[in-house]
């Protein structure tokens, strides 16, 4: 039995790695994608283009403007002096934020009256808009603390002392890169398996396999292991890049990470093989990959939190192996997730993987065509 499985594994390896085009497609893109997406996927804003419309002649307006310009988050792109100039700047996306300091700004501050400052934000990307507004609020609050004069009662009776666990500088890259590790691993798993059975069916070699003494379980193992090893290897490279290139802390232990990775790969390969056994042609296989992959990535919590989804969709995500792996990979990278929490994420993935694999194995012989 072992001889047969081994033979099948060698054959699968050769089939995947011998053809130059296939080899390139499987090995190169994940690395390149990590590097590109690692930099692209971030919600951190820097160099927010802002325009200043300062109608105030006094010192406070100037101080306020300097405070904003001094922040690393904001770049001054224009100073304007007419109300009519505001709209084109926003429309054409030259400026994301326009700060308008009113005529009586300095006078009011001097008189202890509340001075108003109008802030105009481009809301086309609501997330960016909110973040930019938050940055600005922080600057203004620090500014207020500076203008508080001793002797007077404090303007701000409370002060928020914010501390972030696991990611003290709140770098969104720390959040996304472990997620990309998961997404790319999933894509590799699907790439190596999803077309393999469909292709053999189209070429007639699958019949040839079925008349040999190979059992469905053996075919299953033979088709899974090469994908598993390739996936593991690529994931290792990706993890190494994440750790040393992007300098994401890896605070948890590697054994847990690899346990999670192994179970996740198994479920990914299982789904891939299932799609492949269901498909009669390679085109259907490709369609199947998309129908699974796109929702799997978007509904995994990779980019947007599952908690923000409506509850029916949240229930749907329980079927998605990536959902669990996202928690695992982030938990281990950033939080040193305890083993019991890890196990809670592992078993659903294992169940999904086993069901998918068994179904794929059953389909080998029972798919009618």
């Amino acid at each position, binding site marked *: 039995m072992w001889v047969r499985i081994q033979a099948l594994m060698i054959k699968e390896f050769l089939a995947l790695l011998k053809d130059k*085009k*296939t080899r390139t*497609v499987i090995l190169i893109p994940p690395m390149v*994608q990590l590097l590109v997406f690692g*930099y*692209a996927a*971030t*919600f*951190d804003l*820097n160099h927010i283009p802002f325009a200043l419309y300062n109608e105030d002649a006094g010192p406070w307006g100037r101080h306020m403007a300097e405070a904003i310009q001094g922040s690393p988050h904001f770049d001054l792109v224009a100073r304007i002096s007419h109300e009519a100039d505001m709209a084109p700047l926003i*429309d*054409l*996306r030259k400026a994301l934020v326009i700060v308008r300091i009113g005529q009586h700004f300095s006078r009011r501050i001097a008189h*202890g009256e*509340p001075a108003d400052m109008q802030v*105009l*934000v*481009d*809301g*086309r*990307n*609501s*997330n*960016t*808009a*909110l973040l930019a507004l*938050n940055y*600005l609020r922080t600057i*203004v609050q620090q500014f207020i603390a500076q*203008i508080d004069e001793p002797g007077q*009662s404090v*303007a*701000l009776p*409370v*002060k*928020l002392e*914010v*501390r*972030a*666990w*696991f*990611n003290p500088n*709140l*770098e969104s890259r*720390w*959040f996304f890169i472990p997620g990309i590790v998961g*997404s790319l691993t999933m894509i590799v798993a*699907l790439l190596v398996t999803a077309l393999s059975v469909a292709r053999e069916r189209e070429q007639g070699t699958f019949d040839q396999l079925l008349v040999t003494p190979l059992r469905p379980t053996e075919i299953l193992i033979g088709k899974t292991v090469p994908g598993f090893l390739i996936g593991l290897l690529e994931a290792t490279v990706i993890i190494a890049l994440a750790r040393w290139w992007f300098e994401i802390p890896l605070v948890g232990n590697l054994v847990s990470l690899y346990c999670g990775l192994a179970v996740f790969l198994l479920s990914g390969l299982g789904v891939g093989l299932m799609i492949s056994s269901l498909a009669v042609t*390679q*085109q259907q296989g*490709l*369609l199947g990959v*998309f*129908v699974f992959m796109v929702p799997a990535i*978007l*509904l995994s919590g990779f980019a*947007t939190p599952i*908690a*923000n989804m409506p509850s029916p969709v949240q229930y749907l995500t329980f079927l998605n192996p990536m959902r669990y792996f996202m928690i695992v990979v982030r938990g281990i990278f950033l*939080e040193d997730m305890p083993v019991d929490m890890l196990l809670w994420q592992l078993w659903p993935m294992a169940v999904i993987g086993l069901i998918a694999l068994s179904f794929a194995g059953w389909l080998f012989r029972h798919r009618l065509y």
Partner: protein
Amino acid sequence: MSQSRPRRVHRFPSNNTWMRLRGLMRKEALQIVRDPSSIAIAFLIPVLLLLLFGYGISLDAEHVPVGLVVEQPTHLTAEFTASFFHSRYFLPISFDSMTAAEEALREHRVNAIVRLREPFGKQISAGAVAPVQVIVNGSDANTARLIIGYVEGATARWLERLVREGRTRPLPIAIEPRIWFNAEVRSRNFLVPGLVAVIMTLIGALLTALVMAREWERGTMEALMTTPVTANDILLGKIIPYFFLGTGGMVLSVVMAIGLFDVPFRGSFWVLALAGGIFLSVALGMGLLISVLAKNQFVAAQAAIIVTFLPAFLLSGFLFDIGSMPPLIQGITYIFAARYFVEILQSAFLAGTIWPLFIPNLIALLIMAGLFLGLCRFIFRKRLE
């Protein structure tokens, strides 16, 4: 002697491009109708994806579980925490001790802890600054930042109340924010238009990525090539039917975006149709290029998986702000057509028709369409070699 020779029938209208093209298009259309997977790609996928993501993807966190630790409850602390209980953003959970709250944070039962230390009431009454400790789970940095913003908002509302009641003097500076185009700051308003671009990239490439490879593998290309068809006929005969199919998918997506997700549409439909048409040509051209290059369905399929979805998702500005990416990566985004279309879509939906913004993007899309289709034409020759 010549009578013994059979007559040669000349009935070739010498240049019958239109007839050939129509024949090829009808063939392609029939194949589309016969193989439901093309229809599924064009119509089912957009509906499914839009529904799933329109409802599923949201950056607006609500009912965030927050742990409250009040070390010495007074009426002042009660006033402070009330602003949390009355907010739709929070789902406050009270803890007796900081240890318990920290454990909950570690186990992801709460996303943040707000702690009022023992002397809170005393400090406020004394007119001193009372520190409020906020601890967030920073793993998801974006959500963490949103939560901090919400805590600040709740604090501000509490302060307003104090000011109204004359218990403290007003803040010296009041920010008066106005968010244009999306006043209620709904993330769906900007995500759904962008999603249309992501979906159309997928569909365009998926529809055409295999069509050429399939003809090579099934041996029909060889038969086509000995007929008077030209390479242009073959390529156009492929593009045009899928263009119509793709247009159907696009119209459906736009209708769903407006009708179902209530995304405002402030631009002109004509402009949208123009941009959509050009973008679809780019997406189809990319698929066709993959197909022409690969000649083999296996490789074509793998290439389509890799070059379409994730780049359109991550590098188009659909979700992540391109301006915040490092310059090199910003440079890379220029080669993905989705980037231009997302910019047009977001403005056309939320802002209206802004020609100075649209024209450069339209030109970029036109260039890309020309490039992809031109490359297809250049690489695809009417020979087997």
